[in-house]
């Protein structure tokens, strides 16, 4: 399936891009992150991240659909 992935903060620096279109066999956010972690060498584990799907926070096990926008949210530091 095709997913759109957006990167922020340290993940953006590591991936060297703001966003990418991914063709993947992963069916949930957990599987997709494993794949991207291997591809980009992210060191942050799932326990440090939150997931957003189509602009809303979601569970790691949430089933992905073709065309979903997926964002892995590093620890935030606004304010």
């Amino acid at each position, binding site marked *: 399936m095709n997913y759109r992935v957006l990167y922020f903060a*340290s993940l953006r*620096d590591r991936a060297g891009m703001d966003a990418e279109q991914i063709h993947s066999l992963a069916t949930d956010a957990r599987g997709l992150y494993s794949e991207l972690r291997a591809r980009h060498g992210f060191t942050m584990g799932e326990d440090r991240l939150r997931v957003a799907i189509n602009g*809303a926070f979601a569970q790691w096990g949430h089933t992905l659909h073709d065309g979903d926008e997926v964002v892995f*949210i590093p620890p935030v*530091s606004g304010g």
Partner: protein
Amino acid sequence: MTAFRISNDTIDPAALARALVHARTGACATFEGWVRDHNDGRAVQRLDYQAYAPLAQSEGERIIDEAREKFAIIEAFCVHRAGALAIGDLAVWVGVSAAHRGAAFDACRYIIDEVKKRVPIWKNEHYADGESGWLHPDNTPVASERK
């Protein structure tokens, strides 16, 4: 005015404060977060905020809705900057009005605490020694993802 807003432009706290006060307002509490010249013992020169804007917006509004449910308040607003900021720039403004001061203080603090915990905004500090780095919620550096 939407209750929560990400702004790429300078924040005007006086204009925001005026929108808080009604005839039934007895108390306003405000919080201003400023870019300061040091963090964790290092001299800071400037910083950038990145935001995942659609989720920041909806999560920010959710936090203000929660504050309205938890505390007897009249108005509540929060504006957070995105983009490049210099020392002495206003990074975030929170204002709450209420009939009584307890609710105004509690709601103001709730909003800034939750914004810092939950809203997808990231601060990258640029230090005087030429380095820069993403920060954690407790203002310690994210050691990991840098190349």
